[in-house]
């Protein structure tokens, strides 16, 4: 599996591509700003967008491809211009950087990105998402942040430590991909202990730990954790979850408050899947994988 489609929705609203020179219904749609391969830079696309009569009303924004085929792909190409024009976007509350399909840019090709400046420049963000590796988050105080999304195949220990140190008392939903060792992923389940303690992010109820090579360990640890009782959504999709982790989830599910357990792209046996059937649509088990000679693979492994 790969990322082969753009967002159709972001933070509850439908996404539409912004086309220069055309009007845009900002009240209904989230604008997606991307460049084609015609040499136009993302900065120029943003300036075109800001010429819309009501651009200052923008609350949600999605950035797609930043560059054409030559050169490095890096969110800095959007971050710099966004910071420069931050006064023109006073109401921005939901931002995603890097909504690109694998055809446009393999996720591992996105150069490590410095996320510190954009979060410092927009401290009132309610949702922040970024695709691709991150070099630095810095120390962040984000009092309004409700949702955080980080999608890449190479989550480092430093990335995770910085995120878990965010001062984000309002955080309700977190999506992290722990990724593949082949692409620089460094974390293990022990690194998640501060999160599972339930002491940080007191309002966190939706946890998505995806694309993980240690999904079994996550399942076992999270079900034993103080955080677990609070969770409404647990998403361990795109990883290598097998019967071992599934057994822990199965045992813990009846005493949980989970409304959704997403285990899509998993290595569970048919027998294990049948045991989850009694929970109906609360448990999503799409895309069963078969273990190959060389082992299990996360969904996005490059």
């Amino acid at each position, binding site marked *: 599996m790969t990322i082969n489609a753009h967002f159709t929705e972001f933070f509850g609203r439908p996404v539409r591509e912004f086309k220069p020179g055309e009007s845009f219904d900002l009240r209904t749609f989230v604008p997606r700003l991307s460049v084609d391969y015609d040499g136009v830079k993302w900065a120029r696309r943003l300036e075109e967008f800001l010429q819309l009569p009501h651009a200052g009303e923008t609350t949600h924004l999605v950035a797609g491809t930043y560059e054409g085929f030559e*050169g490095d792909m890096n969110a800095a190409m959007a971050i710099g211009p966004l910071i420069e024009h931050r006064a023109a976007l006073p109401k921005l509350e939901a931002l995603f950087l890097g909504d690109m399909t694998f055809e446009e840019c393999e996720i591992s090709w996105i150069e490590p990105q410095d996320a510190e400046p954009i979060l410092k420049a927009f401290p009132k963000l309610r949702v922040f998402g970024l695709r691709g590796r991150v070099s630095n988050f810095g120390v962040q105080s984000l009092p309004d942040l409700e949702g955080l999304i980080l999608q890449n195949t190479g989550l480092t220990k430093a990335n995770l430590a910085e995120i878990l140190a965010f001062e984000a008392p309002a955080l309700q939903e977190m999506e992290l991909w722990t990724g593949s060792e082949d692409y620089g992923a460094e974390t293990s389940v022990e690194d998640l202990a501060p999160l599972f303690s339930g002491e940080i992010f007191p309002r966190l109820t939706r946890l998505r730990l995806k694309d993980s090579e240690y999904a079994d360990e996550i399942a076992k640890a999270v079900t034993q954790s103080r955080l677990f009782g609070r969770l409404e959504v647990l998403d361990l999709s795109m990883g290598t979850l097998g019967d071992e982790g599934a057994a822990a989830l199965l045992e813990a599910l009846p005493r949980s408050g989970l409304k959704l357990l997403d285990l899509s792209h998993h290595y569970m046996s048919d027998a294990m899947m049948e045991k989850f059937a009694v929970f109906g649509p609360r448990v999503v088990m799409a895309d069963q994988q078969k273990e190959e000679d060389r082992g299990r693979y996360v969904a996005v492994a490059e």
Partner: protein
Amino acid sequence: MREPPLLALLAEPGPRLDSWRAACRRMGAPEPILVSYAEALRHPERLTEAAARAGGLRAESPGGGAQIQRLFAEISGHDPGPLPEAEDYGRIAPPGPFLAGLRLAMARLAEAMVETGRPSLTDPEAVPLLFEKLESQSRFQAAGLPVPPLLGAVAGWEDLEAKMRAANLRRAFVKLRGGSAASGVAAVELHGPHVRLWTTATLDASGALFNTRQPQRPLDDEARRWVDALGRLGAHAEAWIPKLKLDGLNADLRLVTLGGAPAHGLVRRARVPQTNLHLGGERLPPEALRARIGAETWARILEVARRAAELFPRHHALGLDLAVHEDGERVFLLEANAFGDHLKGALHEGLDPHEAQVKRMRAWLEAERGPKSGFRFSDKPRDP
């Protein structure tokens, strides 16, 4: 008087031979005489004898299996190498010995034609040329046909990258010299400092390539090793034409010309650049493309096909791969296949490509011998 067989077929057992037998049966013609490639190459008189007994000749694809590879290598004086083992299944062999063997087989066909005076649906001179993809593309280019810009032979990654950059090409197709059925075809993309391949082979640690039906997408250094492996086998490259998309999938057209006229068409589409049907390409009727591009562009496709077929006037059936650029305007001839007329389910004037050729052979023979020759065939199109 018992009817003599209509066709002597130089062919191998398999679906293609089955299709010819079925076509003869449906057209009311006697069972064709089969001469295998091994018989034709090891016993030169067999093909001539078969031709003498039959009305006319046709060669069919030898396929690319290990036995044929060994036969062709041995007969052309190459070392056939050790007997293939189970783990060698799908291994891509260097094309040289195969092409040499194919040329010898076609020389046998030419002799049989000369010695018996029998007509042939297959032009023995056209076949090796059509298997040499760089040569045939160059010939089309020289004739002014719209082929993708050609980069020539490539020895490996460095050579390919230099040629792509010199031609200002970001995307290229690397093809094995003498390849067919997408064997060893890799679509290469440069992406800034990165490289990505779309291919249908796997690369093992020793650098050997194996065909697979599972599309592969190696990146960066792995992709570079791939191109090196193709270069060692003997490869050439051309610009990768981004194909028009139908419902988001890459689409192209296999068009069979019969006697120089476009006849059977089949639109193929796939998520990956290789649309070959045996790799899971989806089949659509030609109307799906015609409706999308309009009558004028469609007419240009047919014109390109006619002009391509004109270059091989004695080769009755050509399987042409044509694509419309994603700009919706430009038409490209991607490939011409000597044995590209095995299209299940494609009908033209009520007949499939093999049935249509059975009918054509009968018409040739009747014209030559007159209607009282003893050849009587049903001319009734089968029920669709």
